[in-house]
């Protein structure tokens, strides 16, 4: 099973409510996947800031004094905002890679959830409501976001096995389904120099898209490639810094429904996820076609 949601706002007046809307969408799909849940929120760009979302099993230990130690290591001020097991590290955009390397040296047990100019990613084992509460997702503002509640099939129930998976700056992906050629694709991507944190099939899909976009393809072209290069069942919902995309495999067993109004584009594994959105009764509601790429960009 698994439940996935996505929300791409067109109307700026809804941005303060992005976190609460996306949270309710995800909670409504809790019975599609009780193992773990995660959400990626794209905040408004601040201009001169890069962010890394990090996670630790021992946050009191790992996050203590980390800001000062990182600042010393890279010679630039670093701000850290701790939220439960996660923390968002902020610095200037050009220092993101250095911070990433410094974290791995200073705190080898910390896991990197994702990085970029705007994205923050929170994921943990547990039901969506518990995860949303733990990270206070409802209070978050932003332009778009995606979420996932997991019923694990292809790899262990761990924080790192939860979705969204992020393999490139401000890129992330959630997946309902299972891939059958992920080991092969992973080997090919490793040869290209991509790095993997897990044995998970979805991480391979995320890395595949990152690799395609790194070769100059836009989101739509990269999604098109999944139809020939990835084998298995998938409905993917993908976020980039300013974009939002959806694609389903040609068999399209995994459910999907979308809604669009003047205010937003929304995706849900089921209509339940969309039922409480503003103006849904007059929205254009449709089932995305198999093997068809849909994407929107700000």
């Amino acid at each position, binding site marked *: 099973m698994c439940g996935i949601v996505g929300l791409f706002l067109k109307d700026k007046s809804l941005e303060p409510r992005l976190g609460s809307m996306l949270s309710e969408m995800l909670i409504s799909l809790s019975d599609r996947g009780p193992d773990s849940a995660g959400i990626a929120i794209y905040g408004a760009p601040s201009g001169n800031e890069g962010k890394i979302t990090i996670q630790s099993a021992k946050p009191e230990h790992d996050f203590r004094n980390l800001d000062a130690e990182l600042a010393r290591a890279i010679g630039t001020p670093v701000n850290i905002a701790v939220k439960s097991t996660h923390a968002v590290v902020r610095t200037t955009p050009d220092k993101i890679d250095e911070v990433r390397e410094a974290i791995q040296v200073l705190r080898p047990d910390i896991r990197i959830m994702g990085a970029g100019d705007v994205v923050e990613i929170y994921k943990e084992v547990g039901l969506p409501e518990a995860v949303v509460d733990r990270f206070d997702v409802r209070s978050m503002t932003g332009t778009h976001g995606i979420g996932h509640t997991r019923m694990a099939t292809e790899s262990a129930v761990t924080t790192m096995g939860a979705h969204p998976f992020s393999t490139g700056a401000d890129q992330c992906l959630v997946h309902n389904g299972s891939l059958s050629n992920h080991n092969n694709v992973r080997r090919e991507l490793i040869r290209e120099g991509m790095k993997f944190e897990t044995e998970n099939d979805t991480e391979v899909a995320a890395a595949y898209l990152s690799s395609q976009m790194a070769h100059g393809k836009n989101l739509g072209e990269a999604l098109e490639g999944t139809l020939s290069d990835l084998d298995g069942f998938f409905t993917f919902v993908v976020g980039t810094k300013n974009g939002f995309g959806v694609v389903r495999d040609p068999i*399209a067993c995994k459910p999907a*429904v979308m809604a669009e109004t003047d205010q937003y584009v929304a995706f849900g594994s*089921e*209509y*339940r996820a969309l*039922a*409480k959105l503003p103006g849904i009764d007059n929205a254009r*509601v449709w089932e995305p076609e198999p093997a068809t790429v849909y994407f929107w960009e700000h």
Partner: protein
Amino acid sequence: MPAINVSKATREQDHEQSRASTVFDLAEMPLRELNQALHNLTPGSNETAWEVLNPKGSHSVAVGVDQPITIDVRGSVGYYCGGMNDGSAITVHGSAGPGVGENMMSGSITVKGDASQYAGATGRGGLLVIEGNASSRCGISMKGIDIVVHGNIGHMSAFMAQSGNLVVLGDAGDALGDSIYEARLFVRGKVESLGADCIAKEMRPEHLELLQGLLDRAGATGVKAAEFKRYGSARTLYNFNIDNADAY
């Protein structure tokens, strides 16, 4: 209270109930209570008209109803609405999720909007009308149900369809009627492709009559049976043929 008064009161109450529908608001009451109340109905019950409010994509709305009642669902439903229906007339005033009318036995289900995957799957009887579009696998393994879709249907529809009639006023997607047995498929628009062992067939007078009857029952006014093409089984896959061994 004297017995005679009780029976008079009951009669008046019954009369009242037969006129007004029983309203069940899913925003106030859990789905299980709705389905239990529907299952508790016995032959001759006066609660013959039901209205369900605020379904908001709920799963399994009005499954397993076995009394000849009407049920109006005001909004969109999730998986399996009206599954196993045996005699009731259900109208969904919205769209339906996957598996609407799955394994219907008799009665009718009308969806005013669209239907998701495998509408009417394995249905054994009754009439399923989709006034919008149906997506993939519509009528998969149908076994006697009649399905009328006013719009289009998706890929792999009527896969292994055994009996019954699937009528499509619009277009059909890829691999229509793959591995079909004896169901009849009538499509007015374009068929993207036919599945294995499914072929176009001659429309004989008995088919035109059957189809016109279904169109009339499904409220497809102004649509003529002669506008459709009939598809069915070439019957070449019924028995194993050694010459086909390479295809497996």
